[in-house]
């Protein structure tokens, strides 16, 4: 569906990546050096950032939030809601956002809730913030989007190991003068194309879910690990991402030529190249920013903005910036925002 929510503005965006760098070319020992070169050319991912076992997505997001709050000079007691968008919460319960209220020193009367979403998740965070700002007395909402998905990847699963990285982000949205169009699409029949089978209520953790198996491609994983069916995701993205972009443009009564920048979920270079070609978008308006981070799920859109804003703002105002997330669900979600008056901070390293 598509709709518009009025009276909004993004005050600022900050992102944090873990310190540990893994170069994909070093994985040649495990996966074969000829293959690795071809994989890097295709995925566009040269290196990923990943957390140590003890670090959670919330830790990355807390640092991003503190960084943003300090630079933007916002009194934290004026934050009315905190939304944590992630597939890697601290615990099964309680919601990680509740812990973040306390850790960030936010008021006790804030709204705090989690959204379990990945690649489209950032837009889900933004739409929730937009609804709170337009329909309640909330004046400022903090959206934290991040994943530590590398913890869910089996070290011998080539299909995922060479693509995904960890990152956290913080975005503060307030009341303003922008009207944001949104477009959403969901097809739950694709649930098993990108999922972690065990660990929920359907298949609880059990000694059986830890048993390793090898798939047709020679990737090893267990039911506790992330699985991705690249072919199904590619077909879904090629069909529904252009429809989502078109849908949000129709809702906003804009043409693609009016858009200053298209910030897509940074899935992989192969997919983005074909999507850009299919939609006939100018390459320099649709940046690819995953070379040193990989696919960071719900953090990938703010992270791409954080990495590329300086380069983009030299050529354009970012007044009409289209965000499009797609993937797990399967789902797509798009919106158009004005970043011309937004404080955008470059990515920081965790612990810096």
């Amino acid at each position, binding site marked *: 569906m598509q709709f518009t929510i009025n009276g909004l503005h993004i005050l600022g965006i900050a992102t944090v990546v873990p310190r540990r760098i893994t170069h994909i070319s070093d994985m040649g020992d495990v996966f074969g050096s000829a293959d690795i070169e071809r994989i890097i*050319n295709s995925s566009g991912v040269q290196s990923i950032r990943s957390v140590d076992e003890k670090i959670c997505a919330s830790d990355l997001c807390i640092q991003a939030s503190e960084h943003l709050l300090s630079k933007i000079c916002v009194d934290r007691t004026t934050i009315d809601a905190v939304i944590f968008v992630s597939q890697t919460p601290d615990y099964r319960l309680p919601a990680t956002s509740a812990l973040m209220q306390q850790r960030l020193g936010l008021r006790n009367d804030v709204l705090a809730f989690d959204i379990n979403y990945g690649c489209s998740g950032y837009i889900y965070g933004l739409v929730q913030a937009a609804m709170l700002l337009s329909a309640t007395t909330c004046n400022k909402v903090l959206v934290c989007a991040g994943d530590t998905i590398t913890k869910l990847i089996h070290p011998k699963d080539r299909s995922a190991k060479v693509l995904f990285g960890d990152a956290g982000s913080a975005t503060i949205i307030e009341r303003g003068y922008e009207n944001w169009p949104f477009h959403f699409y969901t097809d739950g029949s694709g649930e098993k194309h990108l999922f972690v089978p065990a660990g929920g209520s359907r298949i609880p953790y059990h000694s059986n879910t830890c048993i390793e198996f090898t798939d047709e491609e020679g990737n090893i994983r267990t039911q506790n690990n992330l699985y991705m069916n690249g072919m199904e995701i*590619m*077909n879904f993205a090629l069909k529904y991402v252009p429809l989502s972009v078109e849908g949000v443009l129709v809702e906003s009564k804009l043409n693609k030529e009016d858009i200053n920048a298209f910030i897509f979920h940074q899935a992989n270079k192969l*997919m983005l190249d*074909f999507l850009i070609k299919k939609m006939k978008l100018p390459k320099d308006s649709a940046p690819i920013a995953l070379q040193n981070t990989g696919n960071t799920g719900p953090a990938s859109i703010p992270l791409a903005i954080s990495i590329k804003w300086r380069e983009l703002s030299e050529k354009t105002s970012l007044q009409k910036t289209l965000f499009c997330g797609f993937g797990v669900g399967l789902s797509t979600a798009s919106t158009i925002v004005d970043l011309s008056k937004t404080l955008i901070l470059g990515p920081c390293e965790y612990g810096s």
Partner: protein
Amino acid sequence: MENIFLEKLTEILDTQLNLDMDINLGNIEEWDSLGMVSFIAMADVEYGKKVIFSDLKNAQTVRDLYMLVKSEG
């Protein structure tokens, strides 16, 4: 048309082989899951054809792949 197809296929598979229509896909080292995903994207974007996994599993040669994307008639 066939030559253009072979050029595009060589490029997306990132292979050093000199591809022709009769090469068995089993002899192309790059015809793995990454090669298949790339082909699916090429079929959609370059030829406007939706190709699914079972189509690829049934394909034996490069010509079979060509038949999946070439226009009818």
